[in-house]
């Protein structure tokens, strides 16, 4: 793929690794967080952790949407999915997420629920037309994906489609970063900032990071993107000078995608929402504005926020904050595996626990 292949060059990667080894101070530990689950996946998939010096730790952050969706939202989805007259439309990521009673969309489908996996939220429209049933798109994700859910809602509304609904469970990055930064026990030196979220948001949202003397590098998902960003963060820390950097200039503009930002603002407002493991975070979620009541699955199905009731024994909260490695959770590979996930971090293949299980165990 163009824009991809060049950024996987082994020779350059080796040189970056050599530079990192050379420049990293062996007397200290560098802890960098991949905010984005896709960064976590890329790190694992390319085996980058095995290449980095031992004193550079990459920890996974809150950027797997499936992982941070609270139990009550997941249970609400299952409740809707169990209705006879409903078709659920979802990304593949949601299929294996376990509910509080062990159910999942996969199991509900086996029980007869009508559940469709799509690549684009817009595919919902065609499915709704075909089935004639109430068709509910499960909107999860961050600023990258949220506009696509907004686009579906807006299109359905404009078309006057009566049977398309969107479950508004998208979340926003700046607010959760604020929470992480506000945690005094958080031992993170820098953030690999999510490349595609940044395509939409632009760079300003990371100022709070560098203000706290932590590095923030917006970057892509290829080995050279990640390794050069790690090197940059090592250097910033060695120098003690912190600055938001854009290492993904081929896609990310400083101001972000203004059209997508406008779409988000038009359709959603920022509401206090619950994050698995992180609790309720003010203004961190996207709920429908009143004008979009007619496509709001929460309104249609009378879903009530029941608050955070997390899974007993699951340490996702600590894992997401970078306080605990997945393998340190007592359930890891002991009642919680990708085949039979207990906590949501094990479900999404980019969830911290799943990625650890698959590639690092």
């Amino acid at each position: 793929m163009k824009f991809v292949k060049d950024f996987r060059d082994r020779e350059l990667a080796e040189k970056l690794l050599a530079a990192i080894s050379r420049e990293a101070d062996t007397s200290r530990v560098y802890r960098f967080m991949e905010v984005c689950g896709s960064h976590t996946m890329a790190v694992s998939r390319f085996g980058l952790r095995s290449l980095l010096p031992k004193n550079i730790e990459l920890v996974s952050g809150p950027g797997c949407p499936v992982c941070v969706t609270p139990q009550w939202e997941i249970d609400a989805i299952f409740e809707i999915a169990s209705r006879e007259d409903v078709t659920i439309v979802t990304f593949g990521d949601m299929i294996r997420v376990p509910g509080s009673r062990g159910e999942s969309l996969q199991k509900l489908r086996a029980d007869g629920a009508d559940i469709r996996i799509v690549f684009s939220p817009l595919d919902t429209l065609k499915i709704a037309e075909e089935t004639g049933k109430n068709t509910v798109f499960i909107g999860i994700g961050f600023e990258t994906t949220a506009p696509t859910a907004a686009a579906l809602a807006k299109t359905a509304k404009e078309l006057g489609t009566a049977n398309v609904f969107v479950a508004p469970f998208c979340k926003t990055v700046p607010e959760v970063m604020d929470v992480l930064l506000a945690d005094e026990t958080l031992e993170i030196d820098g953030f690999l900032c999510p490349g595609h979220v940044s395509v939409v948001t632009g760079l300003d949202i990371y100022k709070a990071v560098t203000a706290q003397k932590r590095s923030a590098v917006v970057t892509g998902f290829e080995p050279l993107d990640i390794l050069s960003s790690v090197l940059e963060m090592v250097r910033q820390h060695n120098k003690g000078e912190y600055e938001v950097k854009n290492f993904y200039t081929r896609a990310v503009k400083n101001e972000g995608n203004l059209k997508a930002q406008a779409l988000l603002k038009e359709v959603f407002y920022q509401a206090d929402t619950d994050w698995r493991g992180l609790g309720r975070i003010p203004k961190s979620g996207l709920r429908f504005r009143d004008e979009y009541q007619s496509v709001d699955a929460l309104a249609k199905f009378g879903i009530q926020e029941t608050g955070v009731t997390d899974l007993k024994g699951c340490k996702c909260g600590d894992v997401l904050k970078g306080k605990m490695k997945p393998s340190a959770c007592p359930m890891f590979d002991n009642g919680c595996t990708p085949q039979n996930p207990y906590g949501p971090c094990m479900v999404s293949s980019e969830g911290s626990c799943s990625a650890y299980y698959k590639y690092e165990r």
Partner: protein
Amino acid sequence: MCLGFPGKLIEMDDFKAVVDIDGTRREVSLMMLPDEVVLGDYVMVHAGFAIAKMDPDEAQKTLEALREFADLLDEEGQL
């Protein structure tokens, strides 16, 4: 968080386009794309939407910087 891929625009109207990825094609929506694009341009695709025009100059710059840096290392004999 957000898997994306760069696709080449091979068909286009005001609202949607078809992108090609080395022989595989998909329709994508352009409703969220802020940039002017022409056929042959590459866009970053996420969940069926073009979310950004890919900038080949920037990609080139990034790569050149990396290569220069590597050459520098070589010259320094530090590898």
